[in-house]
């Protein structure tokens, strides 16, 4: 007979031990923990532990005006903030029935692609650092800084630009901006060769990255993997082409894919994407001078702006995958509900917990970083 309050105590086998990976470690951009159970050097179980960056954005947004929320949303993902602003604006525009001027659409694409390049540079740097290569990290951060200079000139803010708003963008580009942008792109494109030599074809990296964290295409679809991580498994899908928003259907770009599904393939897809992004921005630079008109549709008094009741689901392709906003209005001057579907919510929790199993302990950080997860997107 066992007593009523009997609880079995499970003692782990003596060859197993637990390791708290994080919340502060090189595997991810931000604070995020992974509790791993190890047998020798091999991970046998992993549990994601989030919440270190929870700021309650969804609740805060319900208490703020439609227009005020623009200054909140970019903070949800620090390395890639522009898609947050654009996606929220797209959802509100759909609800309010606002027509977006053509010039504003081109300017948004320009920012989105600039932000993608900046985020990928950050990713290469961070990923290299997880394998102990620190030079690409310094290079990546330094080159990203040149893009932040452009953001500063265009919007006034280096990271959080708060430049997009429902109805368009805040103001037109400064004089001579396109020339400086073009120069910076030439420089970045020239640097890619150096990155190839230092990082992408470097055997130290290739040997570490190949065969790490393999996802098959079937698993990727099963686990709702999106974005570059999905394209690294061989599925040619991009929200920009298959569910087009803004003027992406007027632009020419390829969708690079790889077939390995491992950390190496995920890095390579991003490397190829940067070339496409540079080509997209060049198309924008070419077309922009001929597109006249306003950059913003005027909205009624923003302090008393009431958006008609309804709901909308806007999706964009961020540098990390499919980003979506579900916005509900009850006809008031504030959103009734905003749900943010960050791509990392899938990658950093379910996918990572499964991928980490079977990894050696020194590969855990690299597996995490290769998924390019952004913890604040999980915590919100």
């Amino acid at each position, binding site marked *: 007979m066992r007593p009523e309050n009997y609880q079995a105590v499970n003692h782990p086998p003596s060859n197993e031990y637990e390791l708290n990976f994080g919340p502060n470690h090189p595997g991810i951009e931000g604070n995020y923990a992974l509790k791993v159970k190890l047998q020798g050097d091999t991970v046998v179980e992993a549990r994601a532990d989030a*919440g270190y960056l929870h700021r309650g954005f969804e609740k805060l947004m319900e208490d703020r005006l439609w227009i005020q929320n623009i200054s909140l949303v970019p903070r949800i993902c620090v390395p890639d903030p522009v898609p947050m602003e654009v996606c929220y604006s797209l959802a509100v525009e759909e609800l309010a029935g606002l027509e977006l001027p053509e010039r504003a659409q081109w300017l948004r694409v320009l920012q989105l692609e600039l932000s993608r390049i900046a985020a990928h540079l950050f990713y290469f740097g961070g990923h290299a650092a997880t394998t102990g290569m620190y030079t690409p990290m310094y290079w990546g951060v330094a080159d990203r800084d040149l893009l932040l200079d452009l953001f500063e000139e265009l919007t006034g803010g280096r990271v959080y630009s708060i430049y997009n708003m429902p109805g368009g963008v805040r103001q037109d580009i400064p004089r001579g901006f396109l020339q400086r942008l073009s120069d910076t792109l030439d420089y970045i494109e020239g640097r890619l060769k150096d990155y190839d030599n230092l990082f992408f074809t470097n055997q130290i990296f290739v040997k570490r990255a190949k065969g790490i964290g393999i996802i098959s295409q079937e698993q990727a679809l099963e686990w709702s993997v999106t974005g570059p991580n999905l394209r690294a498994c061989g599925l040619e899908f991009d929200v920009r082409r298959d569910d087009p928003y803004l003027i992406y259907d007027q632009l020419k770009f390829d969708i690079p894919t790889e077939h390995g599904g491992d950390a190496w393939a995920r890095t390579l897809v991003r490397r190829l994407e940067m070339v496409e992004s540079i080509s997209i921005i060049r198309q924008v630079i070419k077309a922009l001078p001929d597109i006249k008109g306003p950059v913003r549709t005027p909205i009624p008094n923003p302090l008393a702006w009431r958006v008609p009741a309804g709901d909308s689901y806007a999706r964009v392709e961020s540098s990390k995958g499919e980003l979506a906003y579900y916005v509900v209005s009850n006809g008031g001057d504030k959103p009734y509900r905003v749900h943010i579907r960050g791509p990392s919510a899938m990658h950093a929790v379910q996918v990572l917990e499964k991928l980490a199993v079977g990894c050696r302990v020194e590969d855990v950080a690299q597996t995490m970083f290769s998924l390019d997860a952004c913890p604040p997107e999980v915590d919100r």
Partner: protein
Amino acid sequence: MSAAHSQNLNVLLQEIEGIHLTHHNPRRLRADIAAEALPALLALLRGRASYVHLSAISCVDWIEENQFELVYHLWSYETSVLISAHIRIPREPGIYLSVFDIYTPAAFFERDIHEMFGVYFEGSPDMSKFILTEWNGPPPMRKDFNSEKWVMETFSWQEYHPDWLKDLEEQGGGIVSTPESIRMDNK
């Protein structure tokens, strides 16, 4: 989406009783159905209509109608259509079925909704806390939880009156030098 696809889908969806379809635009389809019919709809869409991607599950608290609205956003890579299936469940007791057996990613969203709204999903693999590990209050995303009121009741205001502010106030307070005057000085 081609016309043939659309027709096949419409025929399929007629199998679900009491379904109400609305086309927002060619790539967005809204389906309002009864809560009992949702698992059948999802099984149908995933099994026979290529909707393999669960984009998100959103929850909305309609406190005045005493209901929770659950929205399942599904995407088909083949037909490029996003279907949003809307259901309403009573706010009390706030229990619904898990769709984890149909869509694996549902586990994350259901865990999140349980934490933020207190909706319990029967059959979900993990309903433990995730983000709000140290929170013992009511589910915070519910409309009857007022975060500002909670802050006022929980934290006390601290007096902040540093020396530099006192100096400023002695000089008359407010903005001492406008940005224009600073720029003029620099010239």
